[in-house]
């Protein structure tokens, strides 16, 4: 049983305090160094020549004209670089027989997606490199391209002809086989005769992470070590991957992720651009820099989502769910990326969500196509799962004429049932769905909005109101290493932290989690300040440099606080334990008589005591310390989580739908998330607000669209619609707290929660507004055109097609550009 409680906040406690972020002054004013700001003596610049074709043989590459261009130092192809270019790795073969095409950073024989790199130009300036890139003459022999996901799954056209199939891996979980539940086919068959069966097919459109800072890499190959600065989420993983695929010893590689401007999973990758820069820098013995353009970023940085979801849910006539069967097709794009097919598998345990399905089956076929490769994007697998189940639960409620919240409550895990082992085999430690839902309903004004909805329906108002529900949960805090091992993942899920006690009483905290906007320095300082009893401002957070933070598994999957924070707690505790005998020695007391509180060791029953910072100074001098004890307080810890943790929340969304035009407008959004103990409410608000907008954007705006030739049509922000503040409303955000019992601080992840929860809430609201007109689905993104079509024909709207908006006129005087040379 879980008690719902507000976190205790004392006046002098840092945990729970709305600290403004230490990072913000430098990030907002630009007084920091992003990768593209780095300039090294003699540095050369790279420009990439990219394929305009989705699938083609490379007949020839003529670099002669480009080589003659001003200040061009070299023009190199895949053949020139050979094995020195290494390879892009897939770290997670989800099945033993997974079909995985070799992925060279720069292929020399065949390109498999539009935007793939075929040559690199090296010049003394970025402008000269760009100019010369247009002079590289590549002759292609175009091949048929596998573009449509369903057609690709039928192997009608092969993305990689040598493989003989586009089907990469089939991954299945069946609760009957696993012993965690019943037989789903039996449950569905029973419901067909004496219950309710809901069958739907949903499309998770392709999305582009669209982080603010484009990817950038600088390689300095001089000296004993190769130093790589990269706008990456994963410096440690990148270092490993470069070493593993180039043969350069890991000890000779230093990777630095300086301040990084967002990632959302899009920088959880070992990129071809990084590998090419590394190879070129080594080959020429010169520092090199490559910074992508926004066009290149949209085209060739990995994409996300892109699934078809075939869903069958069975229930009894009273609304009690009996089974859920999930059949996915997941588009990998042209290659199996570093996590790749593992992304849908991360959702495999989440389709059952907070509900007590007695039987569950998950099937996923990953498919290769000739599109940009896909990988993690905020939520990675869990948004897809949450969308599916939350849409289906609302469909079931509509079918039965029940309130969607009442139907959910009938089926969810009651708070007194925690810890609860789900039909997918996970043990949810804590949660209280009743409390979060009650609070959210009040915040939202649920009953009033339902009444307004009824009035609008009755009066035939052209603007209808819909209310969408999403009672989500997620598994986050990737991840227990043993679980990853069982899933055949190529690495562990631990995190590392160290604490350095400086002579002046300041504290350096080193974490292996690599922040790119999350606010680690602030949140970790708060944790250390409380636990070690030192001022918040005296704690410095260090991260993102493999020479400083030598050990780590980086930042993704809402893991930094729940895994990295726990490693930090354990390191701090070691500092205190190392200080204890020294304190006893200095105080001439027995260790057993000491107590530690508020940064001081004191002798019980006396006013004799010493601060831990004073002990730090004493061990620095090392003039007086006990025999057999090392003169250092510095400590480190590696923490491997024992379980995931399971934040949850109730999200309620009201959407107005203009039935005359199909335009949708958000009216109100209220959410109550239970993320356990909150370290910094301000950072949490930022994560929730940003996450919500990102999820709402999937529902309403964003979609990567390709044409029939495999060209990315939504190749700029004119056509790939990102919302701004002008397009959103003020959200009502609140929390309940069921502290996690799997970590010391009681925290749960929050980095992805908003994104995971909001998408189905929005679509459920749009559909709810139109249900009485016969609409039971609107495909994402719910464009006005699609919504209007759904109202007219009561169909969900087909695929997005058509050209981009032609706002920039190329057909004006002047030279025309070399097609496909990039921009």
């Amino acid at each position, binding site marked *: 049983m879980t008690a719902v409680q507000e976190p205790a906040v004392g006046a002098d406690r840092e945990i729970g305090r709305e600290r403004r972020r230490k990072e913000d002054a430098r990030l907002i004013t630009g007084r920091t160094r992003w990768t593209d700001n780095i300039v090294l003596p003699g540095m050369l610049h790279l420009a990439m020549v990219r394929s305009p074709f989705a699938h083609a043989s490379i007949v020839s590459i003529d670099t002669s004209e480009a080589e003659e261009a001003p200040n061009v130092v070299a023009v190199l192809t895949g053949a020139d670089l050979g094995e020195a270019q290494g390879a892009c790795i897939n770290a997670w073969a989800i099945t033993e027989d997974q079909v995985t095409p070799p992925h060279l950073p720069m292929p020399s024989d065949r390109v498999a997606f539009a935007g793939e790199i075929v040559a690199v130009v090296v010049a003394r300036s970025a402008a000269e490199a760009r100019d010369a890139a247009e002079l590289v003459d590549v002759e292609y022999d175009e091949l048929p391209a596998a573009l449509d996901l369903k057609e690709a799954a039928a192997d009608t056209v092969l993305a990689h002809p040598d493989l003989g199939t586009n089907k990469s891996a089939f991954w299945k979980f069946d609760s009957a086989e696993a012993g965690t539940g019943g037989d789903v086919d039996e449950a569905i068959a029973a419901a067909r005769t004496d219950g309710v069966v809901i069958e739907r097919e949903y499309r998770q459109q392709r999305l582009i992470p669209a982080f603010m800072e484009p990817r950038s890499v600088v390689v300095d190959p001089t000296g004993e070590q190769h130093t790589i600065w990269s706008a990456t989420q994963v410096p440690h993983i990148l270092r490993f991957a470069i070493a593993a695929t180039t043969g350069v010893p890991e000890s000779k590689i230093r990777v630095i992720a300086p301040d990084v401007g967002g990632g959302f999973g899009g920088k959880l990758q070992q990129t071809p651009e990084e590998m090419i820069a590394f190879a070129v820098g080594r080959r020429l013995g010169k520092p090199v820099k490559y910074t992508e353009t926004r066009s290149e970023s949209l085209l060739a940085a990995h994409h996300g989502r892109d699934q078809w979801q075939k869903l069958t849910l069975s229930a009894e006539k009273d609304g009690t769910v009996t089974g859920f069967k999930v059949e996915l097709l997941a588009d990998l794009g042209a290659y199996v990326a570093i996590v790749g097919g593992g992304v849908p598998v991360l959702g495999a345990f989440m389709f059952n969500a907070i509900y007590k399905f007695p039987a569950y089956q998950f099937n996923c076929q990953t498919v290769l196509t000739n599109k940009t490769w896909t990988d993690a994007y905020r939520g990675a697998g869990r948004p897809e799962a949450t969308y599916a189940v939350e849409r289906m639960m609302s469909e079931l409620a509509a079918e039965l004429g029940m309130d969607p919240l009442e139907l959910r409550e009938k089926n969810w895990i009651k708070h007194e049932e925690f810890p609860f082992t789900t039909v997918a085999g996970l043990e949810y430690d804590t949660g209280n769905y009743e409390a979060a839902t009650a609070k959210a309903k009040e915040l939202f004004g649920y009953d009033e909005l339902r009444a307004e909805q009824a009035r609008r329906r009755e009066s035939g108002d052209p603007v209808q109101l819909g209310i969408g529900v999403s009672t989500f949960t997620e598994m986050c805090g990737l991840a227990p290493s043993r679980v990853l091992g069982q899933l055949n993942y190529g690495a562990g899920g631990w995190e590392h932290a160290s604490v350095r006690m400086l002579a002046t009483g300041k504290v350096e905290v080193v974490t292996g989690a690599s922040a790119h906007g999350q606010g680690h320095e602030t949140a970790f300082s708060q944790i250390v300040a409380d636990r070690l009893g030192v001022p918040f401002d005296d704690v410095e957070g260090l991260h993102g440099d493999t020479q400083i933070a030598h050990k780590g598994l980086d930042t993704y999957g809402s893991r930094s606080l729940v895994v990295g924070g726990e490693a930090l707690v354990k390191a701090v505790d070691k500092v205190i334990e190392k200080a204890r005998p020294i304190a006893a020695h200095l105080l001439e007391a027995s260790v057993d008589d000491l107590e530690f509180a508020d940064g001081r060791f004191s002798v019980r029953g006396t006013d004799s005591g010493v601060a831990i910072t004073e002990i730090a100074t004493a061990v620095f001098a090392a003039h007086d310390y006990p025999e057999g004890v090392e003169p250092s307080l510095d400590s480190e810890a590696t923490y491997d989580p024992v379980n995931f943790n399971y934040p949850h929340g109730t999200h309620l969304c009201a959407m107005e739908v203009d039935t005359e035009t199909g335009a949708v407008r958000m009216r109100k959004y209220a959410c109550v998330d239970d993320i356990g103990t909150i370290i910094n409410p301000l950072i949490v608000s930022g994560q929730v607000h940003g996450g919500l907008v990102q999820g709402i954007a999937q529902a309403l705006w964003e979609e990567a669209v390709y044409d029939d030739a495999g060209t990315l049509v939504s190749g700029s922000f004119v056509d790939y619609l990102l919302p701004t503040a002008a397009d959103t409303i003020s959200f009502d955000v609140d929390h309940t707290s069921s502290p996690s019992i799997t970590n010391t601080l009681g925290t749960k992840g929050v980095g992805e929660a908003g994104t995971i929860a909001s998408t189905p809430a929005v679509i459920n609201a749009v559909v709810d507004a139109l249900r009485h007109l016969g609409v039971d689905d609107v495909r994402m993104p719910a464009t*006005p055109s699609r919504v209007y079509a759904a109202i007219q024909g009561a169909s969900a709207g087909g695929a997005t097609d058509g050209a981009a908006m032609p706002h920039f006129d190329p057909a004006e005087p002047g030279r025309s550009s070399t097609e496909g040379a990039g921009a």
Partner: protein
Amino acid sequence: MIPAAFDYVAPTSVEDAVAALAQHGDEAKIIAGGQSLLPVLRMRLNAPEMVIDLGRIDTLRGVRDDGDAIVIGAMTPHSVVGSDPLVAQHAGLVAAAVEHLADAQVRHRGTFGGALAHADPAGDLGAPARALGAEFAIAGSGGTRTVSADDFFVDLFETAIGEDEILTEVRIPKHTGWGSHYEKFVRVAHQWPIVAVAASVRMEGGTIAEARVGLTNMGSTPLRARQVEDALAGQPATPDGVRAAAELAADGTEPPSDLNGDAGYRRHLARVLTRRAVLAAAGADGA
């Protein structure tokens, strides 16, 4: 996002600009506020050898009263047009369209003449210009000529401005006391309109005495919906009074199909938005 190399001049008079244009011919491109040209250059969709910057010609900036019309200099930034009292008083439809044009940054850099000369049919200024019967002053080596709004827009990105000519100012007949509304349909705020309708009406009591209606993004040029204007004259400013006229809005149009919707959907939008724009212009949108 690095443009190809180009030469650059910034003349300080219209005469010098016209001379530079005559000298460089079709190798030259004029830059006004740069909000359309710079993306084209940076994405390397175009690579002119010479860019002629009009930014230093002071006479091209500003709004003045010219009797029965107001005159807007071609290099006047949108933000200035949008806050100008003459524009608000006599050409409220222009002020309404500028208010939601792109975003604040574009409104401060982009220019009134530059946007019209770019002639993007999805641009926000063409429909009001056509609706209000604007006249365009175009300077060339032979002097200045005037072209009506009906003749100015020729095709997608094509206007009556010749290769050796420059748009200098736009003369807008005063519509003092008219009610105006620009009904813009977008998915996100900073987007080009999927469809927009510009409407001005002169009311006599509750009746529409005269109407002017322009359409954005309903064809290869901005359009004027004269059939709607004619049908509105004498109608009461009520939803029922306006509906039949608004139903004519899409007649004869050939709107584009793109990611945001097909031509049929745009025609539907034009009808709905015309009704709303006219009612709002008449101050009757709450009716």
